[in-house]
């Protein structure tokens, strides 16, 4: 069996094991699903009144931003899950089995896609309740969801690496927040990037989180005529820009994480 096939096959076994855990400890799932609802409601009702989007409604503008933020946040689960795995006895079993050395990480990033699918569904439903609509047809909306998931999958690999570096689960939560908060807020997620002071605006325009948000807004048709046009190549071709980031991140962090897992597995 080729190494890739082994990684995917064994990864699937591990992913199944991770999903069983979701079933057994539903508290985690409830937390994952409730926080997006809270975000939708908070932003829609607290900021919704005071932020003006020329040409459109803030709620329509907002939802794609919340999608992007939530799935990126969801990636910290990957890090938490792996950090947790490395502390548990079962990891010793995995290390002694003739399984692919990539499987634990591959399986973890894969099972976390399921978290993100679930939270996207919940958010979309709550979005519909507060007035968000899809205007460009089902296919392009689906493509937008697909791009969000793909981007989140890439971020999962970054967090996987972080999860394998940090000494404990507690650290990963804080480390994750420190990186992901600025990344998701200094972006066009909640306010149009044009309104930001220049240094932040430049960061926001080249921030891949902005690009994936922009791409999702285009896919859902949430940018009616009159919404300020973004500037900069990244936001003018947001799908391409997002895909490039996604590939680059995976190309860097997948091998790094797998290598890190191997050396860690060997060190104890």
């Amino acid at each position, binding site marked *: 069996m080729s190494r890739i096939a082994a990684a995917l*096959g*064994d990864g699937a*076994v591990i992913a*199944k*094991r991770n999903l*069983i*855990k979701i079933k*057994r*400890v539903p508290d985690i799932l409830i937390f994952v699903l409730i926080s997006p609802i809270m975000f939708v409601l908070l932003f829609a009702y607290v900021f919704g009144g005071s932020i003006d989007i020329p040409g459109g409604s803030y709620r329509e503008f907002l939802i794609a931003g919340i999608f992007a933020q939530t799935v990126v946040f969801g990636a910290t689960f990957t890090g938490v899950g792996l950090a947790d795995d490395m502390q*548990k*006895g*079962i*990891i*010793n*079993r*995995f*290390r*002694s*089995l*003739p*399984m692919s050395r990539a*499987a634990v990480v591959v399986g973890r990033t894969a099972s976390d896609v399921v978290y993100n699918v679930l939270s996207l569904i919940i958010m979309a439903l709550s979005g519909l309740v507060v007035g968000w609509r899809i205007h460009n047809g089902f296919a392009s909306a689906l493509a937008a969801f697909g791009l969000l998931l793909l981007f989140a999958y890439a971020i999962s690999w970054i967090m996987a690496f972080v999860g394998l570096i940090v000494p404990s689960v507690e650290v990963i939560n804080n480390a994750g927040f420190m990186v992901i908060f600025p990344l998701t807020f200094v972006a066009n997620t909640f306010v149009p990037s044009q309104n930001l002071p220049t240094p932040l605006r430049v960061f926001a325009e080249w921030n891949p989180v902005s690009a994936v948000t922009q791409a999702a807004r285009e896919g859902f048709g949430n940018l009616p005529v009159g919404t300020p046009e973004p500037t900069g190549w990244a936001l003018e071709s947001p799908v391409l820009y997002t895909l490039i980031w996604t590939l680059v991140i995976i190309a860097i962090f997948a091998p790094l994480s797998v290598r890190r897992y191997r050396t860690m*597995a*060997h*060190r*104890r």
Partner: protein
Amino acid sequence: MTNIIEARGLVKHYGEVKALDGLDVSVPEGTILGLLGPNGAGKTTAVSILTTLTSADAGSATVAGADVFSSPGEVRKRIGLSGQYAAVDEHLTGFENLDMIGRLYRLGKVTSRQRARELLDRFDLADAADRPVKTYSGGMRRRLDLAGALVAETPVLFLDEPTSGLDPRSRIELWAIIGELVARGTTLLLTTQYLEEADRLADDILVIDHGKAIAHGTANRLKDMVGGERIEVTVGDHDLSNARSVMSTFSLGEMQVDERNRHLVVPVSGGAAALTQALRSLDGAGVEVRDVMLRRPTLDDVFLTLTGHAAEEEESVEELV
């Protein structure tokens, strides 16, 4: 006979601690090696290195024909491991744990499931098979972990303190399972704190301390190393000095005398005949004998003599045998 496990000069440092200091291990095919040593002797470290979990600072090792350091993947295909601490997933059921292990050994779906059920039965876990391991007792986890080592019916097994935490019945059951495995040709390396267990199961015993082998051989050979037979006798309230002079004529070496308990330990030779003689003489001298036995050294004595510290035996195994 070829050695299925063969290690030469294993050295392992953990910072300042030298966990292994040039350890050699060899286990012929189809036999059981008992690795014996006090806490911190390096047993678990040796097992971790041989099972590819830990690297060594020096030395070489092959297991089932594969080099532990250059082709660890091949080694993993040929071994089953149950470590000192149960490596099971809390959130999965017993069945799911074993099924997963089978899949990761690439046994295929059908075989994995079937094997999982078989082993759950064999380890008396059938009733708990579909409950999350979180709800298992310590001994149940231990048994599940042992079952995990047997999933793929690999030719070589490593069991690190397999019976710690097991109740007497489970312990005897495990001994039976181990017996079956060896009858089928499995090679086994097990570590244990229970000398009785090493005595009973192992073909060969390797005693290690401070990361070095300090003795190697069958249980009998090791016992001979620390000396021959002894008569132990306890005498009546006013008979100690009398008994002492009688017994000194039989003693081959230095007698140990415990004055408070009026207990004498006398090195002898000649077994039962010597004992009969001694009893006659004691009787003739009017010594009241309260208790007497002829004793061969136990592995406990071996252990004490060789390592200078007592084995950490948590509970007596006597009543089991």
